[in-house]
């Protein structure tokens, strides 16, 4: 052919970067990578979100060590009652509630309850939603249509109403700690499943039309292998974002359930929404501490996760991501595809090898 001396070497600079980047593996970890990538306000939001969320998780995990008393403890070790509606003091930093519980302990233990509900709710909705979305989007047909209609119908319900209904069905009015947590988590799950279903289904429908799925079909690859190896792995990109946003929504829904009296009994576990409801009457009589601290806990936990979710969402989208701009024209020109060099026209292949593979060495 005519073009013996043309060799294509257009790696566009991608390859060397990659090799250099391999040393610092921790820089590529999901969240670390995003923090490094972000600048300015977006970085501030992300870090604030991360800090709040980390504090929330730490408090939840170490609640037994941090809380001065148990969540349903009414008397101190020597049998003296705390007393109801005591203002903050050295024994009770955040005071006591109308029921005579220690507010600080309730807030700390409440973090644990919230975290458990968030984990169970998110895990359950991911498994169910992703599976349904994958099957529905991949096979299409009547199953897809039915599932989409059901998902839309669930969307149409006010989510809190649905959660209340399910809380009653699941727990039957009884509420032990795990019974209450499961009831709250599963009722939240039902509200969230359509979201995961929708997102995963849309991605699957898109990925299904990609050429690499076609190329798998041409090979005669089985449905299950295409679904798991090619489609699913490429459709889960947006899930971490929904997870963080849903986690904050789960906290709010749990608090809402508790506030309306469908949550967990105060003797079974501490729950912020319930405490908030019990403190309604206190607010008008000047007792601020019973409402302030559980309320603040809800706001901070939900805000931490929302900030994290929103900024991860912005960072994932190159159009929303802000970058550090250079003041002057800078940077190197990326290589384009043609190299007009004088390599041996008789043997373009060998010349190309040496050029394309500066590192030499085989795998």
């Amino acid at each position, binding site marked *: *052919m*005519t*073009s013996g*001396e*043309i*060799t*294509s*070497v*257009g*790696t*566009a600079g*991608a*390859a060397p970067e*990659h090799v250099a980047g391999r040393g610092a593996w921790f820089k590529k970890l999901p969240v670390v990578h995003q923090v490094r*990538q972000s600048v300015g306000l977006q970085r501030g939001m992300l870090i604030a979100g991360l800090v709040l969320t980390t504090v929330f998780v730490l408090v939840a995990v170490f609640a037994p060590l941090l809380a001065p008393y148990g969540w349903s403890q009414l008397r101190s070790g020597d049998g003296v009652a705390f007393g109801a509606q005591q203002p903050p003091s050295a024994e009770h930093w955040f005071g006591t509630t109308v029921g005579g519980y220690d507010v600080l302990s309730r807030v700390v233990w409440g973090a644990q309850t919230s975290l458990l509900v968030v984990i169970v709710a998110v895990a359950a909705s991911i498994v169910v939603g992703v599976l349904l979305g994958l099957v529905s989007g991949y096979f299409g047909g009547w199953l897809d249509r039915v599932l989409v209609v059901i998902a839309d119908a669930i969307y149409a319900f006010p989510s809190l109403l649905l959660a209340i209904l399910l809380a009653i069905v699941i727990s039957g009015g009884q509420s032990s700690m795990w019974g209450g947590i499961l009831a709250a988590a599963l009722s939240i799950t039902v509200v969230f499943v359509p979201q995961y279903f929708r997102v995963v289904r849309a991605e699957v429908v898109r990925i299904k039309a*990609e*050429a*690499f799925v*076609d*190329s*798998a*079909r*041409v*090979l*005669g*690859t*089985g449905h299950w*292998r295409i679904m798991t*190896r*090619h489609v699913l*792995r*490429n459709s889960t990109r947006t899930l971490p974002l929904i997870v963080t946003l849903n986690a904050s929504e789960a906290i709010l829904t749990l608090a809402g359930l508790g506030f309306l009296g469908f949550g967990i009994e105060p003797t079974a576990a501490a729950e912020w929404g319930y405490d908030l409801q019990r403190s309604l009457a206190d607010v008008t009589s000047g007792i601020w501490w019973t409402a302030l601290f559980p309320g603040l806990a809800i706001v901070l936990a939900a805000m931490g996760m929302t900030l994290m979710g929103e900024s991860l969402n912005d960072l994932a989208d*190159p159009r929303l*991501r802000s*970058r*550090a*701009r*250079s*003041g002057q*024209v*800078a*940077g*190197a*020109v*990326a*290589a*384009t*595809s*043609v190299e*007009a060099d004088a390599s041996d026209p008789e043997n*373009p*292949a060998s010349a*190309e*090898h040496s050029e*394309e*593979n500066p*590192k030499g*060495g*085989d*795998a």
Partner: protein
Amino acid sequence: MSAVASSAAASNGAVAPNGAVASIRDLEVSFATDAGPVRAVAGVSLDVQPGEVLAVVGESGSGKTVTAKTILGLLPETATTSGAVVLTGRDGAATDVVAVSASKLRQVRGRDVAMVFQEPSSVLNPVYTVGWQIAEGIRAHGDVSKKEARRRAIEVLGTVGIPDPEHRVDHYPHQFSGGQKQRIVIAMALVLGPSLIVADEPTTALDVTVQAEILDLLRHLRDETGTAIVLITHNMGVVADLADRVAVMYQGKVVEQAPVGDLFTDPQADYTKALLKAVPRVGEGTVRAVERAAARPEGWAASEPVVRAEGLTITYPGRFRQPAFTAVDGVDLVIRPGEVLGLVGESGSGKTTIARAIAGLTPVSGGSLQVLGTEMRGAKGRDLKAMRPRLGFVFQDPATSFNPLLTIAECVAEPLVVHGRVRNPEAARGRVDQLLEAVQLPRSYGDRFPHELSGGQRQRASLARGLALDPELLIADEPTSALDVSVQARVLELFAELQKELGFACLFVSHDLAVVDLLADRIAVLYRGHLVEEGTGEQVLGAPREDYTKQLLASLPVPDPDAQAVHREELLALRQR
């Protein structure tokens, strides 16, 4: 090309040197990216004289589009620019686009300089009539009544050759064909009488026959209105057809500037020489095809074909009670072992549909299609099992045909794993290395991910995957249309080598006659689902019988300005007949 002018132009009272409508001086542009700043244009200086067509050619990443966008100040926020771009309007007022304020820039756009984009369908707003869209441009530049704006819109639509403009002015974009849409986009650019039109790949998205018409239109406009045109393109044929002067860009720099005749006959820069050599020309492959045909053994013509289509019909079901669309209508085809059949056609001719039907991706609705002894009509997944491993497929876009989460080695090993030849990708590594070597990729590339390879390298890996099972039939659906010419030349060469070595039969689908000619033993021309003409390259390209083939051939611009001038006359004569 001195740096003297830049300092003068930087001030507000910009001066246009030597009467040019646009004068670019020491332009540098860089973009902020996640991986730090990237320089797209590194010191470009160009002049555009009134009434001149300046072609800026280069391959992807050479900075030609960025340069064009800078002329209109259309760069995104992430760009940092230095240097000067001085525009001179018809009234003689000069503006430095790089330094001027946003509101001033809005006045300049449309009045002094206008742009024609690549993809006409996405440039026009689908919810407004074309007349409204043209009038909007007029009314943005001065107080013009609705009636007057409409009158001028009708006038300009007539100028660009839209038939019945009084009536068509109230139509919506979807009611026009692709070529007409591009005419409307040109009308929008033209309506304010700018002294310069920047056309960024104005014909790349169009079929060759339509491309020839649009190039004619641009030439007429230049002659009649004296508008200068900056033509951004990668197609040397288009350059030869339209340009007066050519600037070749490479890695953000202008490597050569010359009048079009000089550039083609006596290129100076090494890069230009290489680029011109890589351009495929019709007639190059004929000799080799004849050689191959002579080398065939006795009785080859009577051997059982790998693909036999008889009255093949493929329809796509209509939606919302619309009638079904017939993409392929009664096509007869035969591919014999070891033979390369080139399938040529414009968009919508059904060429890709046939390729997909042979691979079992699109169901056959009528006639008969036998692939490797399997009847494809009504075939279920189970029936195709025996046929699958004997068939390879190379897709059009190498960027999307690899699973982005698997390494190249895993992707290439996938056919072997699926068909149980090996248990897992690791066990296939020996064979994968062999395949990568066959397509001239270093073995170590097996550990890279698809996005870490360039387009040409990915397409070679795609070829390796297609050949992994040593197929008897390879289907290549526009395998080089997403690649730059030089890369395309390398991939085609490799393709020809492998075909010779391994002897597989091949269906090579392409819209480019010159590319098909390089590889094919026989060429089949499709038009609106019908097979118009079939024969050897010599027959179809040398002495076409059908009018459509003749027109297709005449529309293909020849990368040589003198030959193209003759060629153009032929096309004109053909059209008038």
